[in-house]
C-alpha cells in the first residue's frame, strides 16, 4: 500500500486539491443563489 504522503495525480499537493474543491463549492453555491434569484417572480 502507498503511504499517506502519496501525492495526488494532479495539482501537485493535497492542499491545492482541497483548495480547488472548496473553491468549486463556493462557485457552485453562488451559481445556485443567482439561479434562485433569477427564477423568482
Amino acid at each position, binding site marked *: *500500500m*502507498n503511504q499517506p504522503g502519496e501525492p495526488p495525480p494532479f495539482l501537485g499537493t493535497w492542499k491545492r*486539491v482541497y483548495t480547488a474543491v472548496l473553491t*468549486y*463549492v463556493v462557485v*457552485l*453555491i453562488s451559481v*445556485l443563489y443567482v439561479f434562485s434569484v433569477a427564477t423568482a*417572480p
Partner: protein
Amino acid sequence: MKPLDWVVMFGWLTFLVSYGLWRGRKSGTVSDYLLAGRTMPWYAMGLSIMATQASAITFISTTGQSYVDGMRFVQFYFGLPVAMVILSATAVPIFHRAKVYTAYEYLENRFDAKTRALVSGIFLIQRGLAAGLALYAPAVVLSVILGWSDQTTTILMGSLVVIYTTTGGIKAITWADVQQMAVIFVALILALFMAIHLMPEQVSFFDAVTLAGAFGKLKAVDTHFDWNNRYNIWSGLIGGMFLALAYFGCDQSQVQRYLTGKSVAQSRLSLLFNAMAKIPMQFFILFIGAMVFVLFMFVKPPVIFHPVEMERAAQSTEFKPVGDRYNAAFEARKQAAQHYLDAKHRGATSPADLEELRSSQREFDSARQDGAKLVDKARGSKGFNDTNYIFLSFVTNYLPAGVVGLIIAVIFSAAMSAVSGEINSLATVTVIDVYKRHFQKSGTDRHYLWASRIATAFWGVYAVVFAGRGGGFGALIEAVNMIGSLFYGGMLGVFVLAFFFPKVGANGAFAGVLAGEAAIFAANHFTNISFLWYNVIGCLVVLATGVLVSKFEPAKYPG
C-alpha cells in the same frame, strides 16, 4: 407495464446481479469479502459511495419533495464537500494506517473496548433501522406497479438482496454499483427530457422554468437563518457538514467503502469525487420534480397519486363533488398559468397575475386535500401523504414503453445497491466488533468468512421485518436522515475526540457519547429545533463532556 418494460427491467437486473457475482467470485477470504482485498480504484469506490446514497428513496421521495416543497432540499448537501475535504485530510489516512476492518475497531485502539462496543451498538441500531426503510421504498414501487401488497414485495426484494450480498461480498456490491450509476445517469436524463417533451407545444423549456420559479419551486438557496427551518444555507452548510462528517467518517456503510481502496490517495480521490458530484446530481433530481410539477399544470394528474387509494376513493359516493371541484381547480390553474405566461411574453406581468396564479394553486391544493380526506376516512387514519407516489405516477402514466421499465429497473437496483451495502456493513460490524471481539477470538479465516455470510443473511431478514413498518413515515428520505441525526452526533463526537483531543481518555469518551445522545434525544423531544442541528448539538456535548471528564481522569496514554 408493457412487455418491453418487463424485458428491459428483468434484463437489466439479471445483468447487474450476474455481473456483480462474477466480479465477486474470488472473495475467498474475510479480507476479500469485507474489504475487497483493499484493491479498489478511486472511481469504483466513488461511484459505489454515490450509488449507496442514491438509493431508491432518492428517486421516489426527492422528486416528490421537490414537487411539493421546491428545490430548497438541495441545501442539505452544501456542507458535504467541506466534510469530504476534512475527512480526506484526517480520517482516511488514520483508518488506513490502523489497517482496521471497521471504524469502531480504531476506537478500541484509541480508547477502550467499552467505547468500541457502545459506538458499534449505536451503529447497529441506527443502520438497521435505515436498512429497513431503504428496502421499503422499492417495495412501494413494485407494489404499485404489480398490484402486490407492500409486504409481499418487501419479502421478495429482501430475498434477492440477501442472496446477492451473501454470495458476492463487497467486491460484488462495488462493481455492480459502478454499472448502476451509469444507468442511473441515463435514466435521470431521460426522465427530465420526457417531462419537458410532454409539455404542450406553446410551453417552452424557459416557460416551464418561469412557472416553476413563480411558485417558488426553484428557490434553491435560502439565506434567512431560522433554527426551526429545516433547509436554509446555514443549516445546510453547518448542519449538513456535521451530518456528512458523521455519515462518511463514522458510519461503517461508508467507511467500509473507502477502506477497500488500494491506497490512501485512491480513497481520498473517491471522497473528493463525491464532493464534486453530489450537489449537481441532487440539483438535477430535484429539478426533475419541479418540471413534473409544471407538466402537471397542463396535463391533469390524478386527485390522489396513490393508484390503489385513488381507485378506492373514486368508488366512494362522496367522490363526485371532490372530483368536480378538483377538475374545476385544475382548469382554473391551467388558465392562470397560460395567462401568466402570455403576460410574461408581453413583458407585462403584474402582481395581480402572480396572485391569480398562486390563488389558483391554493384552490388546487385544497381540492387535493379533499381527496386525501376521503382516503383518511376510508382508512380510518389521519394525514394521508402521497408524496412518494408522485414520481411513480409520472413514470408509469406518461413515459413510453421501455423507458418505464428502465426507470423501474433503476429504482429496483438502486434499492438493491443501498440495502446490500448497508447489510454488508452491518454484518461486518457484527462479526468484527461483536462476534470476533467478544465471542470467538481465535477462529480461522474461513470460520469468520462464513460468520460474515450468516450475519449478512441475518441483517437482511431483519431489514425485511422492519420494512413492514415503513408506511408509517412521511417522505421517506427525511425519515432516513432523521434517524441518522438522532445517532450521528454522538458517534461523530467520539471520533473527533479520538482524532484531535489526545488528552481525553476512555472514560471521558464513553461519558461523552452517553451525554451527547441524551442531549440529542432531549432536543428531539422537548424542542422544535430542526433535525439537521442535532449532529452539531450532539457532537459539541460529546466534546465538552469528554474534555470535562478527562480533567479529572486524563488519558493513560495521551495521543
